[in-house]
C-alpha cells in the first residue's frame, strides 16, 4: 500500500482512507471527528437567551467571572472550524490570539494607563519615526462611535486574518495538510513567545497590563457594573460570531469548506480551487482567534508573551476535544466545562490539575479513536433504524 502511494498524490491516498473508513469502521484510521447536525434556530436561540439572562442570576461578580471565559469560547470556535470541519489541527492559534491581543492593547491603551509606558517609549524614542506610531495608535483609538473603539475590534482581526490568508496559502500547498500543518504551526508559539519577550517597549516578559475595557468610556455601559458591562460586550461578540457560524454551516460556502477537508481531490476535479478555499477558511479561523484575543485583553486588561506558548494552543485543543470537534455547541460546552473546572479545582489540586488535564486529553482522544469501533459493535447488536434514535450522532448530516 504505502510503497505504491509514494508515487500517488498524497491527497488521493487520503480519499482512499476515507473510503475505507466508510466501509469498515473498525480500522484504526476510521477515526474522524466530523460535524454533527446544525441545531435548529429555536434551540440556538434558547441557548442565546440563557446566556443573556445569566448576569441577572449570577450578579455582577459572577458575570465578571463568566465574562473571562466568553472570549475563550470564540477562540475554541476558531480552532473547531479548522479541526472539526476540516480535519486540520493547529498548534499555533494561541500565537494568533496573543498577536490580536497585543495589537488591540496598543490601539486601545491611551495615556493614563500602564500601556501608556509603551506610548511614552514610542514618543521619547530617539528615532523620530516612533512618534508617528504613537500618534497613529492614538488616532486609531480616537475613532469611537458611542464610546466604543471599533478600530481596536476590527483592525487586529483584519490584519491578523490577512497574515493567516498568506500563511494558509503556503500551508495548504503542503501535500498532507493534516500532518504538516500541526508540525509547522508548532513553531509559531515558540517564535511569538521569544520575539515578544525580546521587545522591551511591549513590556518584555511582563507584557502589557491595565488595558481599559471595551465599554469603559461608552454610554452603553452606563448603569451597569464593571463585570456586567464586560460580560455584555463579550456576549455580543460571541453571539455575533455564533450567528455567523450558524449561517456558515448551512451555507454553500460551509459545504465547500467541509468538502475541502474531506475530499480535496474530488473538489479539485469539480473545478473548485481547493487550496484557495482552505487558505480562506484558515484565514477566517485565524481572524477569529485574533478577535478572541481582542475581547480577552479588554476583559482581563492584561496580555503577556506566555499566552502564545504551545501549551496554550494545546489547551484550546483540549477544550475542543472535550466538547467534541465539529459539534455546534462543542466549543461552548468544552471551554466552559474545562475552565469552570479549572476555576474550582486548580486551587485544591495545584499542580496536579495539569495531570488531570493530560489524562482528560488522553481519554478523550482514545474515546475518539475507539468510538467508531464501539459504534460498529453496537450496530451489529441493534437493527439500524432503531439505532438512529438511540445514538444521537447517527442523525448528523455530513
Amino acid at each position, binding site marked *: 500500500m*504505502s510503497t505504491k*502511494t509514494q508515487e500517488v498524490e498524497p491527497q488521493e491516498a487520503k480519499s482512499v*482512507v476515507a473510503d475505507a473508513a466508510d466501509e469498515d469502521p473498525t480500522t484504526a484510521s476510521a477515526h474522524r471527528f466530523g460535524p454533527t447536525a446544525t441545531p435548529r434556530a429555536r434551540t440556538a436561540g434558547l441557548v442565546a437567551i440563557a446566556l443573556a439572562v445569566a448576569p441577572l442570576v449570577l450578579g455582577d461578580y459572577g458575570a465578571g467571572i463568566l465574562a473571562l471565559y466568553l472570549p475563550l469560547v470564540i477562540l475554541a470556535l476558531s480552532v473547531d472550524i479548522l479541526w472539526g470541519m476540516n480535519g486540520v489541527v493547529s498548534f499555533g492559534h494561541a500565537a494568533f490570539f496573543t498577536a490580536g491581543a497585543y495589537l488591540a492593547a496598543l490601539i486601545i491603551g491611551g495615556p493614563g494607563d500602564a500601556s501608556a509606558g509603551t506610548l511614552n517609549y514610542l514618543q521619547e524614542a530617539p528615532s523620530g519615526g516612533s512618534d508617528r506610531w504613537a500618534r497613529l495608535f492614538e488616532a486609531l483609538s480616537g475613532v469611537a462611535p458611542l464610546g466604543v473603539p471599533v478600530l481596536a475590534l476590527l483592525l487586529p482581526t483584519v490584519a491578523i486574518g490577512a497574515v493567516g490568508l498568506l500563511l494558509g496559502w503556503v500551508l495548504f500547498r503542503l501535500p*498532507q495538510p493534516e500532518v504538516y500543518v500541526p508540525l509547522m504551526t508548532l513553531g509559531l508559539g515558540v517564535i511569538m513567545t521569544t520575539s515578544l519577550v525580546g521587545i522591551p517597549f511591549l513590556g518584555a516578559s511582563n507584557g502589557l497590563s491595565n488595558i481599559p475595557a471595551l465599554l469603559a468610556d461608552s454610554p452603553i455601559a452606563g448603569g451597569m457594573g464593571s463585570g456586567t458591562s464586560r460580560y455584555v460586550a463579550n456576549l455580543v461578540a460571541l453571539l455575533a460570531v455564533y450567528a455567523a457560524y450558524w449561517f456558515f454551516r448551512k451555507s454553500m460556502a460551509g459545504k465547500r469548506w467541509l468538502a475541502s477537508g474531506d475530499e480535496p481531490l474530488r473538489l479539485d476535479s469539480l473545478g473548485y480551487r481547493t487550496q484557495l478555499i482552505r487558505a480562506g477558511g484558515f484565514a477566517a479561523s485565524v481572524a477569529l482567534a485574533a478577535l478572541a484575543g481582542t475581547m480577552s485583553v479588554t476583559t482581563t486588561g492584561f496580555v503577556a508573551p506566555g499566552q502564545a506558548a504551545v501549551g496554550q494552543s494545546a489547551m484550546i485543543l483540549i477544550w475542543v476535544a472535550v466538547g467534541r470537534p465539529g459539534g455546534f455547541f462543542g466549543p461552548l460546552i468544552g471551554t466552559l466545562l474545562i475552565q469552570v473546572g479549572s476555576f474550582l479545582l486548580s486551587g485544591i489540586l495545584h499542580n496536579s490539575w495539569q495531570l488531570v488535564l493530560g489524562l482528560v486529553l*488522553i481519554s478523550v482522544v482514545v474515546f475518539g*479513536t475507539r468510538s467508531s469501533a464501539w459504534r460498529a459493535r453496537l450496530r451489529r447488536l441493534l437493527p439500524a433504524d432503531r439505532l438512529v434514535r438511540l445514538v444521537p450522532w447517527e442523525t448528523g448530516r455530513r
Partner: protein
Amino acid sequence: MGTLLQILFQGLGIGSVLLLGALGLMIIYGVMGIINLAHGDFIMVGAYASVVVSSAGLSVLSVPAAVVAAAGIGLLADVVVVKYFYNNPVASMLGTFGIGMVLQTVVLLVFGPELQRSELPISSSVSIGFGQSFSVWRLILILVALATAALLAYFIARTRYGLTIRLVTADRGVASSLGIRSTTTNRWTFALGCGLAGFSGALAAPLSNVSPTMGVNYLANAFLVVVLAKLGDVRSTTAWSLGLGLALATVSTAAGDVMATIVVWMLALIIVATRRKSLIPARV
C-alpha cells in the same frame, strides 16, 4: 576566520542535539505513523534520570540509566494508550501531547520546578585554531551523535530487526501476511525511539537547564528536521539536522536567537511548500 570556525562548531553542536532528537522521532513516525509530541518530554525524563543517578555518585551509569528509564516509560505508554493511535497522525499528536503533560506534571510533583544542576563530566576545552576554543564535552556530543546515526543506519540496513522495521514502514499489510507481528514491532520501536530520546537527554543535561518544561525547546526544531528529511533515511536526517544547526548558528550570530528561529522556520516552510511531492509517504 575565527568567527566562521566558531559558527561551524556551534552549528554542529546544535545540529547534533537536533539529530539525536530527530532520529527517535523519525523512526517512530516511519514505523508506527505516530507523531510523538511527547518526545521532548522523554528527553526531559532522560535528563532527570541521569541527574538523579549521577548525584547518587554513579555517574558512570547515568547514560544507561537515562536510556532504560525513557525506554521503560515509553514501553509502558505504548502498552497503555499509544497502541490506540497507530497510523492516526491527528490522534497521535493529541494523545502523545497528553502523555507529555502527564510526564511533565509527574516530574514537577516529584522534583519541584527548580532547575537541576548537572556537572559537566569533562569541563576542559580544546583549542580549535585561530585563537578559538571549544568545550570538549560538546565535541564529544557531536561525535556521539554522528556515531549514533551511523549505528542506527547500520542497524536498520543490516540487521534482521532492521529489516522488519523497513518492511513494516513500507507495507504493514504485507508484513503481517508474512507473519511479522506488527504490534510487537511497534512496541519495541516506540521503546527504541524513547530510549534514543533518553540518551540525548542524558547527553544534553550538562549543557542545558534541566527543568520539567525543557522538552518544548527541543520539539519544534526537531520536527522541522522530520518534515524536511526523507522519512526513514538516516543519512538525509543527519544532513538536514546538521544543515539546520548550521543555519541556526549562522543567523543567530548575525542577528540573534529570535531572528534565527524565525528565519529557519520560514526557510523550512518555503522549502517544504515548494516541493513537488511529499517526502513523507501517505499512510494507509
